[in-house]
Structures are given as structure tokens and as C-alpha cells.
């Protein structure tokens, strides 16, 4: 190819991080996820005296593990999730163990969806999903500030409307 041996080519990280509130949003999700098994265990432990120890022990372990994860992991996720919009393309990076970079050119974008779940609304966040004509090429940006997301969706929609062709 054109590159000589010894020049390493890498994908650079996208410019923007998510909104800082995404950390809180992820933490809340994890805590709720942890609460789902812990709360029933605690309630049962309170009611059933003979089995109390064997109910409260796993509850305590789960609660400790879940809380630790909720405190630490989102900080890390915040560093790994990045996004960028240029004049030509949408560029997103996610994951660490299976790192994934997705690039969708502006000219091929078909739809732009903004979704705000109940928790996201609480944190004033939104998820933007950009789809292309490929069944496997959708690009999702989770945890954006809702105003940034709305702005982004408007901008992307305008650009795609101005692009001729059926984007296949």
C-alpha cells in the first residue's frame, strides 16, 4: 500500500466526550439494576427469620459489588465513549474490551431519531440514533445533553434533506 513499513496508522479518538451527567445516569441505571435483586432479598430476609442470614448475606454481597461498580465503572465508560460530527461524517467510539468505531457519511444518512427515556429525561439527556440504508450501519450516541442532541438532530436532518439521491 502507500504507507511504508513502520508507520502505524490508528484511528484517533473522536473529539467530544459525552455530557458529564451521563456518569450520574449510568450510576442510577446500575443502582436500579442492583436494587432489583437486593430489595426482594432484604424484604424476604426481614420477614423470614430462620433463613435471615442466607438471604441477607447475598443481598449484602450484591449490594456491595453493585455499588462499587456503579461508582467506578461509569468514570471509565465516560473516558471510552466519544463522538464527533464533521461536515462529512458522524464518528463514534464505544467500548473497551470490544472497542468499536463507527463512521457514517452525511450523504448516506437516512433517518435521525432522538429518544429520551424516563431516566434520561431526569438527567436531561438524550440518545441520538443515526441510521443509514444498511441494516447494520446504525450509529448511536447515548448520553448527550438534550439540547445538544436536539441541535444535532436538527442539523443532521437538514443536511440529509439537502442531499440528493436515495442514499443507497
Amino acid at each position, binding site marked *: 500500500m502507500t504507507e511504508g513499513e513502520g508507520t502505524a496508522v490508528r484511528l484517533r479518538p473522536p473529539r467530544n466526550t459525552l455530557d458529564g451527567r451521563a456518569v450520574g445516569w449510568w450510576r442510577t441505571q446500575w443502582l436500579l439494576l442492583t436494587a432489583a435483586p437486593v430489595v426482594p432479598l432484604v424484604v424476604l430476609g426481614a420477614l423470614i427469620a430462620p433463613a435471615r442470614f442466607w438471604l441477607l448475606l447475598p443481598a449484602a454481597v450484591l449490594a456491595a459489588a453493585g455499588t462499587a461498580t456503579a461508582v467506578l465503572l461509569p468514570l471509565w465508560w465516560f473516558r471510552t465513549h466519544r463522538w464527533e460530527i464533521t461536515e462529512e461524517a458522524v464518528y463514534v467510539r464505544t467500548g*473497551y474490551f470490544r472497542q468499536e468505531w463507527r463512521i457514517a457519511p452525511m450523504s448516506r444518512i437516512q433517518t435521525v431519531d432522538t429518544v429520551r427515556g424516563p431516566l434520561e429525561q431526569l438527567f436531561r439527556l438524550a440518545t441520538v440514533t443515526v441510521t443509514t440504508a444498511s441494516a447494520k450501519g446504525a450509529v448511536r450516541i447515548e448520553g448527550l445533553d438534550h439540547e445538544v442532541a436536539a441541535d444535532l438532530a436538527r442539523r443532521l436532518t437538514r443536511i440529509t434533506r439537502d442531499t440528493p439521491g436515495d442514499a*443507497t
Partner: protein
Amino acid sequence: MSTAAPPADWHRLDPRTVLVTALVVAGVVAGAAVPTTLGLAGWLGLPAAVLWVLAAAVLVIGAAAGADRVRWHRTRYRIGPERVDLHTGLLIVKRRSLARGRIRTVDLTANPMLRLLGLVTVRIGTGEQGSESTLELDPVTRAEGERLRRVLLERAVTAPAGVHREGELAVLDPRWIRYAPVSFVAPMLGGAAAGAVLQVSDWVGARADVIAWIGDRFRETPLLWTIVALVLAALVSGVVGALGLWIEMWWNYRLEREPGGTLRVRRGLFTSRSISVEEARLRGVDLVEPLGVRLFGAARLDAVTTGLAKDHEARNADHNTLLPAAPRKRADVVAADVLREAVAPTGAALTPHPRAARGRRLRWALAAALGPVLLLALLGALLTPVLLWIALGCAAVAVPVAVVLALDAYRGLGHALSGRYLVTRSGTVRRSTAALERAGVIGWTVKQSVFQRRAGLLSVTATTAAGGGAYTAYDADASEGLTFAAEAVPGLLEPFLERGAPSSGP
């Protein structure tokens, strides 16, 4: 029966549809009637059972024919200057309308019954997702079907004229039938045949007799040979079935290019099929080599097109096949003809992937082979030594097979740029060499697991609106794979790349 004649530009389906439906339902009913009668005979006595079943059969056939008569009465279609409309529905009137400019495929199918009556089923598709975008005219006369096909696919000639020949691109060579028995169809049909024998004998209550009869045949033979003989018998019937199926599917096969830029595949002995692919929708070809076929140096050619084989009716795998399993050279020539290229991109020399990719494949293969063996050995150690021997036998068979497949999978890996196309190849049981038009790439996905990162590998996926939606170069060298993607579609990936000093990991 007083039917207000439809306005002049509205057409009806062929009224013989009622006859066809009645005959088809009669066939199904006859098939179901035999086991039902036999079942009831033990309970009611034979004459009573026959009478009951006959009465039910007449009722069912009559109802089906009546329903179809109503459907015929309520169905009409119109080919307007801008749109194609279809009004149909048994109880609720369904109105469907397609813009003519969006129509991409017009496929004609005729099963033996329809062919006998000179009828065809026409399926008009826009190539968008979901069955909402397909109109089905079932049935019209063959002449009307051909007329619709011509009228709806006729366009201004947009394809570069004179670059490549029009007319016939490939016809069936009967010698290709030698690849039919080595396909995966043969063992599947063999198993199905064995299952069918047991099922039918169960209906007539003779399953035990059949098994006893087989047992008698082999009374003097050791168990091992009995199993070998039975498997051979199933395989032979599978091979016969595969040959028959091949003849039914591919008889009269022709691949043609029609004026106006449409590729047309016609084939079928009993059920004739005509599949048209608009070349403007063609984004490349996929040269598929299933293991058995590949051992004999043959390959199949599939079209990679946007908007094909997405609705339920068209999902069967052969819908986008341009060429059945044929000698590899022939497949490459047809690929070049189809793509209007001088040299087939599927035959291009590919960049091999780093040796680390081979190590990964060997590890996966050994894990897959040894996992069950270890489980068996563990159980054997705990329970009975017999299992240890079985584990040993499994390991002796599975490990070499896994290693050979892994090495073959590594050899198959490759990617390249060839003219207007990017080519990726992968797979061992089903090796696929996909040539995708670079202008048809509508995005990139790059994936790298922790293990890949340590080995300096990554997987580059070109997403596209056509075919499978994504074509991947697995485990390419990290730098080289990104350079490949950047060159394939100039300007798209380039702004996100950074070039640095030689690095060995993060």
C-alpha cells in the same frame, strides 16, 4: 354473479385461479385424507371413515374455491403512468399503490399447475424492507406477465453502452450437475428421507414392523456395519434427492442481460422462475464456495443488490443466485460479465492477513473441539471409564478436523482493492469472496477486542444497503486494514486517522 365491468384501465386476474386453487387444495386434502382415513378406520370402520373424510374433503375444497372466487371478483390492478395500483382482499379491501419509478424487481413464477394452464404469478417489488412494498398478481396469463415485466422495467438506457455484451451471459452446462451431490443438501435430504420412512410407517401403525424388518436384515451383521450400511443408504437417497432437486431448480437456466440494464435469471424444470435484477441496484457479487463444492474447484455466484430477498416470500436462499455451482473459472468470467469489468474482482490477488490471525483461529478451533472432550473426560473420571475412551475417540477425530478447518479458514482470509470494487474473503465451511462496489459503501465499522489489540489486528466492516448489509475483513493487520478502508472510499475515513511512529501496542 353480476359483476360491474371494471373501468377500462383496470385489469382482472385470470379467472382460472379458482380452478387452480381447487386443484391445489384437493391435492393437500388428498394428502391429509389418507392418514386421517386410516386413523378413523380403526374407530368407525372403513366405509364410514371414507364417507366422513370424503364429505369433509368436498366441503373444504368447495370453501377454498368459493373464497378464491370472491378474491378474484374483488381483485383488480392498474398500470398507470405514475403508479401501479392493486385492490384486493377477501373481507377487507386492501389498496396498495407503488410508484412506478421505485419498482426494482418484477419476478415471474409458475408452478407446474400454472404452467399447464399458461399462467404465471407476478411479484412486483420496490426493494424496500417489509412486505408492504410488494405487489403480487396471482395469477395472470404468461403473455400478460411478460408484458408487465417489460413495461415496468423499461427505463431510459443508463448503463454505459457497448462496454459489455448484452444478451446471454451464461446458460446451463449439464455437467455442472456433478456438484449437486457434494452440496450440503445431500446429507440433509438423506436424513429427511430416513425420517419420512419412520413417519409414514408410524401413520399406518407399522413403525415397529419396519424397525424389526431392518433388524432382521442385519441379524448376522455386526452393529458397526449395520450403522455404516444404514448411513450409506440414507446418503445414497440424499444424493438422489439432491440430483433431482438440482434438475428441478436449474433446468433451462439462463442468465441474460437485457437492453436497458436488467439482468434476468430464468430457470426451473417444473416450476419455472424468472428473476430480474435492475443493474442500477447491483452493488457487487458474492462468490460463494461451500466446503464440498470448493473441494471440487467450483463456486456459486450471488448478486449483491439493494432491495432483494427481504420480504418473506423471497427469503429463500436461491433468490439472488446468478449462477449455480460451476467451475471456478467460469464463475469468475460470469462475475466479470455481470459487473461489466474486464477482469473479475473476485479473482484478484488478495492481501493475506497476519499470522496472528492464524493463531486466533487455531485457538478457537481447539477450544471448540476440546471443550466437549474435557467435559466427557471429567464425567468419565467421576463416573465410568467408558466415557474416558469415548472422550479419547472424540479428541482423536475432532482435533485434526478442527485444526485443518482453522488453517483453511486462515488461508481464506484476505482483502484487496480491485478497480471499482473492494474484495473481502472469509470462511471455511462456506467461503465467501465478496466484491462490493466502492461507491456502494455507506459507512465503516471498525472493531477491535482486547486480544486483537494485543496481536495488532482489527476487523474492518464496510456497511452497505445491499445484500447482507455488511462485508467484513476479519483480523486484518491494524495499520494495513485501516489504510485499506481509507483508500477504498477516499475522504471518508482519512480525517479520523492519525499516523504515528512505529508502535507495538498502546
